[in-house]
């Protein structure tokens, strides 16, 4: 995809100013360090002019206000695991790495809240909560390495969305450094609050385009006693969808996760997975339920029976945590394993009303055939969410057809009543498609709001809107 190299465009005077304000040891201008902060998990690349690695809100505020004075773009960065180019500094400027701000500031078990700095890794927070028998539900495939800051900035979803929703549903309050360097606090550390406009929600999913999140207060839940897991292989997607409807709509069961993976994805993980996957498998469903021991056992056996009723080829129930991890490893390795098929992929995360999944998948595969480009699909199917992956090898012509294919698919998605992105964000990867879903007037309102917070447009330019 796009590759740009920026010369070091920061003037010596500004460089000195930044070093004085936040310490020379936190400012990196050497090309090697800058290369290491030039990409995210889309593999898109653009080298920033500086990397800054602050340790405190004050250092963030100083950095941002100096950048603002000199019109230098700021690209906030968590772990760089994003899938829409969000932390790729496409306009150069400063890559602001927040991984050093990684303290869990306060976990208040009685209040069911935790306040963290943005660089805390999602799983570290979950582990800390679990020590108090508490639970932070959002579980992206990247939970072990993505940061809470990145999760909030993208409104990340994940595997537990079916029952527990997405990041947005857990964010109570934020400390934010605005582009002029001022620090604001939104929301409240209470479990409910409706005082004034909901600025917290406005910043969730803002993709680093409005300000830098420096503290985040999240809601926690009591930790479910038990999780049960079933893996079920089917010959085709129709059977998968029948089973899903049977579980949720006909039998009113409420799984924690309902993950689907198609044939191409299975091909990519086969062999590297511990689990033996049936030769004729054309799709699988991975289902988690949680709750107390008795209910879990009960639900799991009912779900297994329902899968069998809907012509499952093979089902396996995890008996131990290790077995559960092994099953989930298969699911989690799908996305990166697709690079084994070709060196490039375009990743979309559209979502349609649940009842429209069959229709949209049919269209997706048809269009793939028309363009002779390989498409792979997996996702949180219980919610009508699909990770569409268009897999190809680099090359100009290919780029063009991939682009056509993707825009065709997204048009269909919107036509059916869906959304072009449901958890990875728009970034720059999908910026050109946003017009498919939002009307010009709606886009204008959003741009006006952005201008109010970031009049000079230094915050993550080139993202969301072209």
């Amino acid at each position, binding site marked *: 995809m796009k590759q740009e190299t920026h010369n070091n465009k920061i003037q010596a005077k500004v460089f000195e100013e930044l070093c004085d304000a936040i310490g020379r040891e936190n400012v990196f201008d050497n090309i090697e360090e800058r*290369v*290491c902060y030039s990409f995210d998990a889309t593999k898109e690349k653009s080298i920033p002019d500086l990397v800054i690695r602050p340790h405190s809100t004050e250092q963030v505020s100083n950095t941002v206000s100096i950048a603002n004075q000199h019109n230098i773009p700021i690209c906030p960065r968590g772990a760089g695991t994003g899938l829409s180019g969000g932390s790729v500094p496409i306009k150069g400027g400063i890559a602001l*790495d927040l991984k050093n701000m990684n303290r869990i500031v306060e976990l208040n078990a009685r209040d069911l809240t935790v306040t963290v700095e943005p660089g805390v890794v999602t799983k570290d927070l979950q582990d800390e909560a679990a020590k108090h028998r508490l639970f932070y539900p959002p579980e992206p495939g990247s939970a072990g390495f993505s940061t809470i800051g990145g999760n909030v900035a993208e409104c990340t979803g994940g595997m537990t969305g079916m029952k527990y929703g997405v990041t947005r549903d857990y964010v109570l309050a934020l400390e934010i450094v605005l582009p002029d360097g001022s620090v604001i606090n939104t929301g409240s550390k209470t479990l409910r609050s409706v005082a004034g406009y909901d600025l917290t929600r406005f910043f969730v999913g803002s993709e680093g385009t409005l300000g830098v999140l420096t503290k985040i207060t999240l809601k926690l839940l009591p930790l479910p006693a038990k999780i049960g897991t079933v893996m079920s292989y089917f010959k085709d997607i129709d059977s998968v969808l029948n089973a899903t409807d049977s579980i949720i709509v006909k039998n009113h069961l409420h799984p924690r996760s309902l993950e689907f993976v198609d044939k191409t994805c299975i091909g990519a993980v086969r062999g590297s997975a511990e689990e033996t996957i049936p030769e004729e498998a054309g799709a699988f469903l991975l289902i988690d339920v949680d709750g107390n021991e008795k209910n879990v056992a009960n639900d799991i056996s009912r779900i297994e029976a329902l899968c069998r009723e809907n012509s499952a080829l093979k089902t396996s129930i995890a008996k131990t945590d290790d077995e559960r991890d092994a099953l989930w490893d298969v699911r989690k390795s799908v996305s990166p394993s697709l690079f084994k098929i070709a060196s490039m992929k375009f990743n979309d995360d559209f979502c349609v009303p649940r009842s429209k999944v069959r229709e949209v998948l049919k269209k997706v595969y048809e269009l793939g055939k028309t363009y002779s480009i390989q498409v792979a699909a997996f996702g949180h199917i219980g919610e009508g969410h699909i990770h569409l992956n268009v897999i190809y090898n680099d090359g100009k012509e290919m780029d063009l057809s991939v682009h056509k294919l993707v825009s065709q698919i997204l048009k269909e998605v919107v036509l059916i009543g869906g959304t072009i992105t449901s958890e990875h964000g728009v970034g720059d990867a999908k910026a050109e498609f946003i017009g498919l879903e939002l009307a010009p007037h709606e886009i204008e309102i959003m741009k006006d709001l952005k201008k109010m917070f970031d009049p000079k447009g230094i915050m993550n330019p080139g993202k969301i809107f072209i």
Partner: protein
Amino acid sequence: MSTDWKTEVDKCSKCGKCHTVCPVFLETGDESMVSRGRISLAEALRDKQIVYTDKLRDYVYSCKKCMRCRTVCPSGVDYEVIISALLSGVAENMGIPLLPRIIFRYILPRRILFDLMLKVSSKIQWLIPMKRRGQMRHLPLLFMGKRWIPTLAKKTALQKFRKTKKLKNPKMRVGLFTGCLINYIYVDIAEAVVDVLNRMNIEVVVPQGQLCCGTPSSTMGDFKSTKKLADVNKEVFESQKLDAIVTACATCTKAIKMDYLRTLGPSWQSMSDKIYDISEFIDKYCGDEYETKPIDEKVTYHDPCHLLWVRGISDEPRNVLKKSSDFVEMDQAGACCGGGGIFTIIHYDLTLKMLERKVASIERSGADTVATNCPGCVMQIADGFAGKNSKIKTTHSIQILQKALVDSGINKEK
């Protein structure tokens, strides 16, 4: 060095999962100190966006080559191909500092010179100012240990076992690859290996012509020197009629079993198949046969990176220790102890942080002794306890078995 690194880098999906296990990244959170970042540097070199600089060398040297990242990579990136290419690129483009170059090219291949050099340097170690000694630990043997070189053995392992003790009707005949640390410093580990195996009715040959495994030179990208050493070791071990080759050093096992397949090519495969870590060997060939009287000590086990993360060996040493002692597990047994290679010189502070974590895990386990299967880790961990007034002892797991082993009449002709 092969050029396949140029395509290997494309396999990296930039997912970031290597963040979760890299011991260096876990300390620094710095993207330039983890495989994903270094892969992006390799890519930039390939695409001529950067050139070799001092900074780049530092970033390349900041990798511990523990290979743990490779065990979790969902895209199947063979990071070792990439880091080796970077190391040799650094060596080719920036040269290797004079002193190590002399050591790798002229001294390591000549056992007599190496012996002599160490003797001399052990005499003159007081010449190096105290402050710098700490920082120079683990530079290929010459400047070892906080006590600088933990006293050099009077007689090296090779000298000690010049003659093979013949057994009447041995079950097997194995060769011991000593490796430098055991040969010069931890001769007692070699003694334990030979003693234990002999008592299990296995004849042990210590081939005299063997040289350094080559890890110090490959760590600095000097693969030419490694090749020279490997050629000699190949000849020496192939000329013996051996059922197996054992080592008690995790790094040497990795080098001669795995790395030599690249250095020497497929012709090494049949020898490679015969190479075992000492616990692995005992577990495989003597697992049910030997009797022990477990020692009255709580013993825990530290997994050396090169054994666990490169070879997946974790049960075998534990099986041996469970038979020989009151075994207790520590948390994070597979976390790097921080020792080894050029890394400890460039990033001395990080080495210490990793060591501190390791020491804390060992203390939490409540063990009296920590055992491991690598003399490098023994040295590092012992160092961690050295200044602490701790009663916890550091040893090689074979030495625990040596104490616990009960002679069952298999071989009484001592």
